[in-house]
């Protein structure tokens, strides 16, 4: 049986929801949010906590090492490479764009080295990364307007991000308005407005595998941190047409989903 709790994009609710689940004496705890995992670790010293969508669990203090996590917190780590893959996709889809805006919510930063990782990936690909900070709902619009005004060629939208998830429809409207090629805000794929989306497909499955092992008696401290192995790409050809972009057949062939 699974007891579901949702913070409805409000991080201030996390401690109370954590406490509620502890009170229900759950046998294992799973969360797709690094902040919730960190909070849970402080409150749950016995209950196994399975994290997912965490980029660098060592840097975040969730585990001691990838092979021997120690404590009661095993999980799935992935994100350090995904932003780089998204940048690569943008470069391939919009080759004229050499300056890429990074719409970023520092408060949702999912790992300490996230910004540095994106800048480094940009250098490797020959792209200049320009930060577009937006930490409040009303800051996305001026950030994207500044991107248009300063001639940035494409936008990398931070994902995952609680703020951008809650604002995904508005962000996509702004991308359409400003005719900006962009990766998708967090959500369920490239609907109108964004051009390309990448995600790891097997993370939830791997988290389920870990929970299953724990329920069968495995010690959480002995379960190595897992990494996803399957990544998928979606391309929205309707957005590409709006942006007057021609998608090379080689990229279309690589896409797992093509939205027409």
């Amino acid at each position, binding site marked *: 049986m699974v007891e579901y709790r949702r913070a409805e994009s409000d991080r201030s609710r996390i401690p109370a929801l954590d406490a509620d689940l502890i009170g229900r004496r759950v046998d294992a705890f799973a*969360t797709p*949010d690094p902040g919730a995992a960190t909070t849970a670790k402080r409150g749950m010293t016995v209950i196994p906590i399975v994290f997912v969508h965490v980029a660098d669990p060592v840097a975040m203090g969730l585990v001691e090492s990838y092979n021997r996590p120690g404590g009661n917190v095993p999980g799935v780590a992935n994100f350090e490479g995904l932003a780089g893959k998204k940048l690569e996709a943008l470069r391939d889809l919009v080759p004229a764009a050499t300056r890429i805006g990074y719409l970023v919510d520092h408060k949702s930063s999912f790992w300490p080295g996230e910004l540095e990782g994106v800048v480094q990936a940009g250098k490797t690909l020959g792209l200049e990364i320009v930060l577009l900070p937006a930490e409040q709902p009303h800051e996305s619009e001026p950030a994207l307007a500044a991107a248009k005004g300063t001639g940035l060629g494409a936008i990398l939208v931070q994902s995952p991000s609680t703020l951008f998830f809650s604002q995904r429809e508005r962000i996509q409207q702004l991308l359409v308005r400003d005719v900006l090629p962009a990766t998708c805000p967090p959500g369920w794929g490239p609907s109108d407005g964004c051009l390309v989306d990448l995600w790891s497909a097997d993370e939830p499955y791997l988290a389920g595998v870990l929970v299953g092992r724990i329920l069968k008696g495995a010690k959480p401290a002995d379960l190595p941190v897992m990494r996803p192995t399957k990544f998928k790409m979606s391309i929205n050809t309707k957005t590409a047409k709006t942006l007057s972009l021609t998608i090379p057949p080689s990229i279309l062939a690589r896409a797992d989903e093509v939205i027409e």
Partner: protein
Amino acid sequence: MRPRRLLLFVFTVAPLLWPVGAGAQQQRNPVVGFLGIAPQGGTRR
């Protein structure tokens, strides 16, 4: 049930049933707590 039979049950049969009840409690289905941040529907990433 007569008082003597009731006493006999309480002190002989009932204690034998106690471990069965305790075992049944231990075999409850496991419960997994899931805490999501996004609203229902969530994200895939």
